[in-house]
């Protein structure tokens, strides 16, 4: 224990060196801005700046990249809240309550909640990282395909209540999301699937961002145009020191959910296959299920912003663990970080902790500092982001369309995806007018590929025996919790009913 504190202290001191501190501040700012753009995320920032980091010592370089990674995680919430477009899959859940808050003129409240919750998530997860890295790495190894599948079932179970009130339409929405997720190459059989019209753009599958930007960007704008008849009221926002303090005091209403979300997020993040997106969705779903006022979720509950934000930040720290101890990237960004480490001659693996403690603890120390720096930078920027909402609609709308187009292009760099996004936007809008909920489709396309792949891998390994999911202890427990979660609202309803009648 003492040795850990000693190493950590040295790591933090290392991170506070002028060069490294500058790297942190610069990295956080870049990450924040890149993350705030829909379609762009930490992966872009990290990938582009990777070559630049060959010019500085490895420790400074990884600190810089980690700061970008951290900053982008905070930034993801900004476009979710101000524009209503999730900038990354990790920020989808933030839209559910962030957007209604912004529309009712409380964007600053939502942004501060997101920043504070991210800070809570970041802090709890780095502390967990410091204390429990080796045992958790060992636990992560126990997660094979059956456990991953059970975890996906658990993730689906947590947001069972997110759909609309029209059940057949909700089911349709979930299923179409799952089917779209199967487009592309099936790695199990090596065969291409659902390649419509032999268009090569479908070979890389339907990217989550294409659907999300289409539906939440273009579709949402058309919807706004319709509901307001083009006379969109300019949002009134007041930013003053006093309102900032008042918003910070809100923390009481979401500190519990955020802390729970942080622990959950960190834990799910450490599992190589899962990562931050299921973590944030599960955290949102749990916050809603166990809230005293579940109906206020989706209509602008601050806890609905805080829960996923705490979880996705915690998970992004968590996904550093498999990268460092196993050499497995938990996300595309960590994949590039990993590439960077290899180029600097640092081999991630079970021995890195013992062979290069200065590097590992320097990195962990920098996470502490980066977390603090980002929350301060973020809060300082909030007035600027909120100002975006005061732009006249006829200026904001074309800017959002342009952001959608370039944001849809950036991840895969094909016009095919931009066209697909446009089609999804129009179709999503037309269906939404008929009360088809859109969120389930977006969630399904994120979790679908993981669920199908882990299911089929498990069945291959068990020679087609379905019992493998309940026989293995970890997956059995996950499935049991999932069943309890699904039945919880039903039980609650059943219990309340007789009371209402009497």
């Amino acid at each position, binding site marked *: 224990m003492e040795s850990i504190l000693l190493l950590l202290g040295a790591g933090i001191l290392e991170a506070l060196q002028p060069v490294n501190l500058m790297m942190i501040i610069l990295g956080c700012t870049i990450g924040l801005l890149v993350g705030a753009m829909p379609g762009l995320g930490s992966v872009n920032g990290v990938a582009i700046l990777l070559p630049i980091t060959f010019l500085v010592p490895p420790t400074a370089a990884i600190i810089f990249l980690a700061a970008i990674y951290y900053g982008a995680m905070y930034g993801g919430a900004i476009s979710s809240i101000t524009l209503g477009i999730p900038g990354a899959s990790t920020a989808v859940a933030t839209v559910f309550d962030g957007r209604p808050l912004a529309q009712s003129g409380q964007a600053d409240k939502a942004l501060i909640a997101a920043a504070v919750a991210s800070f809570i998530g970041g802090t709890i997860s780095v502390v967990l990282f410091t204390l429990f890295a080796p045992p958790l790495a060992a636990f992560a190894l126990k997660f094979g395909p059956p456990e991953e599948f059970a975890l996906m079932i658990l993730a689906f179970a947590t947001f069972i209540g997110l759909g609309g009130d029209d059940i057949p339409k909700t089911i349709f929405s979930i299923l179409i999301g799952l089917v779209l997720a199967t487009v592309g190459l099936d790695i199990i059989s090596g065969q291409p699937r659902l390649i419509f019209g032999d268009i090569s753009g479908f070979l890389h599958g339907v990217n989550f961002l294409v659907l999300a930007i289409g539906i939440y960007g273009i579709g949402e704008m058309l919807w706004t145009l*319709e509901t307001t008849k083009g006379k969109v009221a300019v949002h009134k926002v007041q930013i003053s020191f006093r309102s900032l303090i008042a918003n910070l005091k809100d923390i009481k209403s979401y500190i519990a959910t955020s802390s729970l979300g942080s622990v959950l997020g960190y834990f799910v993040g450490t599992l190589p296959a899962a990562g931050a997106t299921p973590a944030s969705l599960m955290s949102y779903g749990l916050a809603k299920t166990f809230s005293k006022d579940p109906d206020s979720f989706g209509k602008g509950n601050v806890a609905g912003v805080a829960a996923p934000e705490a979880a996705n930040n915690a998970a992004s720290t968590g996904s550093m663990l498999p990268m460092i101890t196993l050499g497995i990237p938990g996300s595309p960004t960590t994949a590039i970080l990993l590439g960077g480490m290899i180029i600097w001659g640092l081999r991630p693996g079970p021995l890195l902790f013992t062979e290069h403690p200065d590097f590992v603890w320097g990195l962990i120390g920098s996470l502490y500092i980066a977390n603090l720096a980002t929350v301060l930078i973020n809060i300082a920027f909030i007035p600027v982001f909120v100002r975006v909402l005061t732009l006249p609609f006829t200026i904001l709308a074309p800017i959002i369309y342009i952001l959608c187009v370039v944001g849809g292009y950036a991840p895969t760099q094909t016009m095919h995806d931009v066209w697909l996004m446009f089609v999804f936007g129009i179709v999503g809008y037309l269906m939404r007018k008929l009360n088809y909920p859109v969120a389930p489709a977006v969630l399904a396309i994120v979790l679908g590929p993981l669920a199908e792949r882990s299911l089929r891998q498990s069945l291959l390994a068990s020679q087609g025996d379905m019992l493998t999911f309940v026989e293995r202890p970890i997956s059995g427990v996950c499935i049991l919790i999932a069943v309890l979660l699904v039945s919880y609202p039903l039980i609650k309803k059943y219990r309340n009913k007789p009371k209402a009648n009497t």
Partner: protein
Amino acid sequence: MTVRTAELLMGILCALCSIGLMVKSAELNIGWIEGRGPGSGAWPFWLSTGMLLASLLTLFRWFRGITPESRSTVPYMTRETLVIVSISAGSILFLLVATHLIGIYIALLLFLMFYLRFVGRHSWLLTSVLMIAIPVFVFCLFEWALKIPLPKSITEPMFYPIYDLMYS
């Protein structure tokens, strides 16, 4: 077209779309392979079957008048909505087509000119400032800072001198 008709049409379209996906998935093995689990087409096939059932259920509920949409006789799209939505959708369509033909930067310029001046009725001064500034910002962010080349189509050679400045 009323909401009632739109609901019916959408239900039918969804059902047809599900059948299409089922047929497409059935090109692969949709059965259970002994000792290997489901074939590569099984997951999309059975999910599309579920989609078909869900849309049939929606149609049934339309028939019985259970959903609020199936009883609503207000127009699905008022004239006003149609105009305002198609201007936006149309201008994005133009932006995409123009990107293929003349590259994204000129397309952005024209798109912004149209939207700001003719839809938003902003002054020519504001319009020209923004229609220059936004593409320049996009260029700086994507090409220079993020190194993501955006499609330039035939206008590519116009950028050679800029690359000379950027990378020299």
